[in-house]
């Protein structure tokens, strides 16, 4: 229960910051000022937006399927929020430490699709229905390359446990029960003879430990943009052309929940990308001979310093990825629906399948 509340608070905080950052970053990239009036530099803007939404009337259309309509936002948010249960925030701190975290996450996130369809169908509005169908088609399609990219990580790490995958990517490798005698080699090639187990830092991140995973990371990142309906894959709710996608009929608190779910999804996919590819809560600074940067910036497990350093690195890496998501939104034009499907089925999926195959061979020969 405590983990639930803490995670919810953390998530709300991040989403508020993200919503403000989105507006400011968008403004700066387009040579505008963005919010300036509410609080210093407009920093209270997103708080006020939330307060405004909470005050609004909760409109349920007369023709709507009321049960589905009312339940959908909660289901969508619950599905995304449940994914946070297996995210390790620090070496010690994980809301639910279960051995099949990756599998659970992929499964629970897919429930999101049901909520989207409920919202679209329950609204009893053809535009909401079309928006929901587009969203669902997109999310279901892009789950395949994303899932394959994650699968290649799982094959190389030989674990479905997020915490174990995290431990493998840093100097604390041997502290994880069962990994006491594991070793990390530079680029994962033992023949090079450079043992990076105690060097840590960026050299033991998954994208360096197995350079093949860099490709998987790019695939996962593109697919995760599409999964969270972000530009350049935001056809279902193209803001400049459409009023909204599946959530046209929602207002007030229910809309706020949908909005929160959308931003939580962004945060979640970024967190997963960081954990699986970018070293999780491990520091990016390596130990260099006498300069023990990695030791200094890791802290001690079990003490406050370990928690603070772990949380700091995980969240700062996540924010870098979130910034990249925002920047991509304001850089690239939207893909047409056929281009979207072309990219998914004819480019990303075959490449991801190839990566999975190579990851298997890599695992057999290298590590």
């Amino acid at each position, binding site marked *: 229960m405590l983990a639930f509340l803490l995670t919810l608070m953390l998530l709300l905080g991040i989403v508020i910051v993200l919503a403000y950052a989105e507006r400011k*970053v968008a*403004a*700066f*990239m*387009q*040579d*505008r*000022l963005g919010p*300036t009036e509410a609080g210093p530099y407009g920093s209270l803007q997103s708080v006020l937006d939330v307060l405004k939404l909470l005050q609004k009337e909760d409109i349920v259309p007369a023709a709507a399927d009321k049960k589905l309509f009312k339940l959908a936002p909660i289901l969508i948010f619950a599905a995304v929020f449940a994914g946070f249960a297996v995210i390790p925030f620090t070496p010690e701190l994980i809301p639910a430490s279960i051995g099949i975290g990756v599998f659970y996450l992929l499964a629970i996130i897919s429930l999101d699709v049901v909520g989207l369809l409920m919202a679209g169908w329950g609204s009893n509005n053809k535009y909401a229905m079309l928006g929901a169908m587009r969203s669902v088609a997109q999310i279901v399609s892009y789950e395949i390359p994303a899932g394959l990219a994650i699968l290649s990580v799982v094959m190389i790490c030989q674990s479905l446990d997020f915490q174990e995958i995290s431990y493998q990517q840093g100097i604390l490798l041997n502290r994880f029960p069962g990994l006491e005698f594991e070793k990390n080699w530079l680029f994962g090639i033992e023949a090079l003879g450079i043992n990076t187990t105690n060097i840590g830092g960026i050299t033991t991140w998954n994208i360096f430990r197995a350079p093949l995973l860099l490709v998987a990371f790019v695939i996962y990142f593109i697919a995760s943009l599409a999964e969270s309906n972000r530009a350049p894959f935001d056809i279902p709710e193209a803001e400049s052309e459409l009023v909204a996608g599946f959530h046209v009929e929602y207002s007030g608190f229910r809309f706020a929940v949908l909005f929160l779910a959308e931003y939580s999804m962004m945060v979640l996919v970024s967190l997963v990308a960081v954990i699986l590819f970018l070293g999780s809560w491990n520091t990016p600074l390596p130990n260099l001979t006498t300069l023990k940067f990695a030791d200094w910036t890791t802290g001690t497990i079990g003490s406050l310093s370990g928690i603070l350093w772990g949380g700091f690195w995980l969240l700062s890496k996540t924010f870098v990825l979130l910034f990249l998501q925002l*920047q*991509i939104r*304001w*850089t*690239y034009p939207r893909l047409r629906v056929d281009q979207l499907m072309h990219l998914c089925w004819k480019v990303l999926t075959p490449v991801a399948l190839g990566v999975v195959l190579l990851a298997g061979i890599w695992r057999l020969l290298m590590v």
Partner: protein
Amino acid sequence: MEKSSVQHKTGFWEVVKSLLSGLLLTWRHFRNADKRRAPVPVMDDNYFKQPEGLVTLTYPYEAIPVPENGRYRLHNEIDDCIVCDLCAKICPVNCITIESVKATEEIGVTSDGTKKRLYAPVFDIDMAKCCYCGLCTTVCPTDCLTMTPVYDFAEVDIKNMIYHFTDLTPEQAEEKKQLLQKQQEEMAAAKAAALAARKQQ
């Protein structure tokens, strides 16, 4: 000149390069966000030479100064006005309404030395009708009617768009009218008396 066709770039690395250059472009704009465009007027040499930084001006707090010969809200300096009615006559949209009352004696002089002989109980300019042509300011003999740099004067009630420039209260105006009437009656009486005196001769 020979026409050169645009080379269509293809291939994986070209695409990656163009994607990265796009990201670089937005990143450059993001990095320049600490610079602001200075609110300089169009006459300034730097007006067209500010390619970097945010372009938005927070309008009520900062604004681009208007050119000196810009045509915005009218202002009449009633102390200098000789109530010649030229502005009302030339106005293409009839937005100036003037009523004049002859003074019984000389009222005074304007700042350029012209004598004032008329009161203006009504001198109204309807800025809602005004077309900002500036003709009234060119014909004004004493240069008392001018265009000011004020352009932000929207009103909720359209009646407030009528600007009253008279310096007389209605009572004072009535008094001046009475005075004029009295003087005219006296003059008429004197004239009649003179006429009668001539007839008797």
